């Protein structure tokens, strides 16, 4: 955004936005009374918030820019990070039940004199590799492979690093017949149970349950230009706006950017990217991830396993916002 907007004017706009957001929240708490219609005021506030967003450069436009950056075809993918961070990585394949799913990769990495289990969603770059990787959309066997590797890590006390980057789990008939829902659920349960330290990094697209399956971790880090969302903006727009073309509005409303999610307490840490985005400098992006991993692992390894597990569950237990006896709890 132009630097001229910084300073006084920016602060004034921020204050107005804060005021409007508080008012909107107030309105949402009012009981419904006969004859009182708040729709108009809510619509007016919503409209003004959208305008402010545009002026401040972090409204629908800004969120949509992040969506595009998160999906940038030159953005480093899991195997790019693995190649840069862990020379000598040994890939382990297959779920031992049905198949090897190329949309999830995993294996052993040598890391500072010890071993790390690295598991990530993997997209492709050209037509052939995209098809091979199924656009990074895992089938149940991908999640079952991830669980197998996590159990292996657990057996030998190896910390787990996951790299999250998927539009979502694959929506297909065969995937459903092999239990896509159950595969995601059991992966979540597997991560909830692990005794070893776990770090998840959202490196690109954190798309819905298919992404979350690899992110029930002690620490959830997020690269600055990544997104993490309950649904793709396109799907959200077609459901709520009845029009996929409103994806930009949905992207803003969903609060899917790293700064939004840091504010909401969904991620533990946002990792700044190299100037212009991770796609501009893969090596620098990998260094940033590696440093964050080091620091977080160092902290996690100081804790006893059952305390780590307790704190992990406690963290996810606190996720959510609700009202109880008039109080808003966060």
């Amino acid at each position: 955004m132009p630097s001229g907007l910084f300073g006084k004017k920016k602060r004034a706009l921020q204050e107005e936005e804060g005021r409007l957001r508080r008012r909107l929240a107030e309105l949402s708490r009012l009981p419904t009374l006969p004859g009182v219609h708040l729709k108009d005021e809510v619509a007016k506030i919503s409209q003004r918030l959208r305008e402010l967003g545009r002026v401040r450069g972090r409204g629908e436009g800004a969120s949509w820019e992040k969506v595009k950056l998160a999906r940038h075809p030159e953005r480093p993918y899991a195997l790019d990070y693995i190649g840069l961070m862990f020379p000598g990585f040994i890939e382990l394949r297959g779920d031992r039940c049905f198949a090897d799913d190329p949309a999830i990769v995993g294996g052993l990495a040598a890391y500072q004199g010890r071993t790390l289990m690295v598991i990530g969603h993997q997209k492709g770059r050209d037509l052939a590799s995209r098809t091979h990787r199924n656009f990074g959309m895992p089938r149940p066997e991908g999640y079952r492979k991830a669980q197998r590797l996590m159990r292996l890590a657990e057996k030998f006390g190896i910390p787990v690093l996951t790299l999250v980057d998927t539009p979502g789990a694959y929506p297909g008939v065969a995937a459903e017949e092999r239990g896509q829902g159950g595969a995601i659920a059991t992966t979540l349960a597997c991560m909830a149970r692990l005794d070893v330290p776990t770090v998840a990094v959202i490196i690109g697209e954190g798309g819905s349950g298919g992404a979350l399956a690899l992110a029930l971790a002690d620490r959830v880090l997020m690269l600055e230009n990544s997104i993490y969302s309950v649904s793709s903006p396109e799907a959200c727009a077609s459901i709520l706006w009845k029009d996929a073309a409103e994806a930009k509005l949905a992207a803003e409303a969903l609060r899917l950017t790293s700064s939004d999610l840091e504010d909401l307490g969904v991620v533990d840490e946002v990792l700044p990217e190299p100037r212009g985005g991770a796609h501009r400098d893969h090596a620098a992006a990998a260094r940033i991830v590696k440093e964050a991993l080091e620091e977080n692992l160092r902290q996690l390894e100081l804790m006893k396993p059952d305390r780590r597990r307790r704190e992990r569950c406690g963290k996810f237990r606190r996720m959510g916002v609700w009202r109880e006896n008039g109080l808003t709890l966060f």
Partner: protein
Amino acid sequence: MAQRGSVEISPRGGGEKRADSCPACGAPMDAEELAANLRVCPACGHHFPLSAGERIELLADQGSWEEIATELRSDDPLGFYDLRPYHERVEEAEYETGLSEAMLVGTARMHNMDVVLAVMDFRFMGGSMGSVVGERFWRAAELAAEARYPMVAVCASGGARMQEGMLSLLQMAKTTCAVEMMASVPVPFVATLTHPTTGGVMASFATLADVIVAEPGALLCFSGPRVIEQTVKEKLPEGFGRAESNLEHGQIDMIVPRRELKDRLVQVLGMLE
């Protein structure tokens, strides 16, 4: 046999708009007759949806239901507005269903066995799982673990509550941790999947149950038929995602008709205790 005497399902209770004829076989419907038959079509056995209240009447011994976490209400952490503000959609759902959220939790007795019940209602914003559903499920699991009561969850959900953004997706992680809490005791956890159970609920607590029971004909899947047809343009086989297909593919333990549901749940729980 289920104790018919303890089950009173009102002809005008919850559920979707009452049809004049059965959508499955076309047989004309009499509201009173349908209610007397636990909202199962007498001609073809089609299971109509039950409201949370009707479901509790069906499963709980008369007068034994005690709801907990009743004061929890949705907030609007994102200030979400699409075509309408989120809070307005919630108020409308409250008004239309007479419920406080898409899941009710509490204790009850089933044939004199103490249980914790968590019952979803699809009419409340499509049974979507937001922060309140997640927190209620957590408290129910906590109570089950502390009191060492088994838990019965009855699921009906279209997935995550989109208006709560990532906070709603994270309820999958939260309810998973809740199931783990029950498993660590352990107390038995049986899920009954009813029409429809899809999305985030299907990919979290519903499929983590020790035993998974389904009602006949229920649609049970992660991605719904429409999503699959639209995104990957796959032709759907007959009966795709239905309880019967799930049973055939090894995804659930059994299909139990509504009339036998309570007896069967109690039998299973009794053998796991």
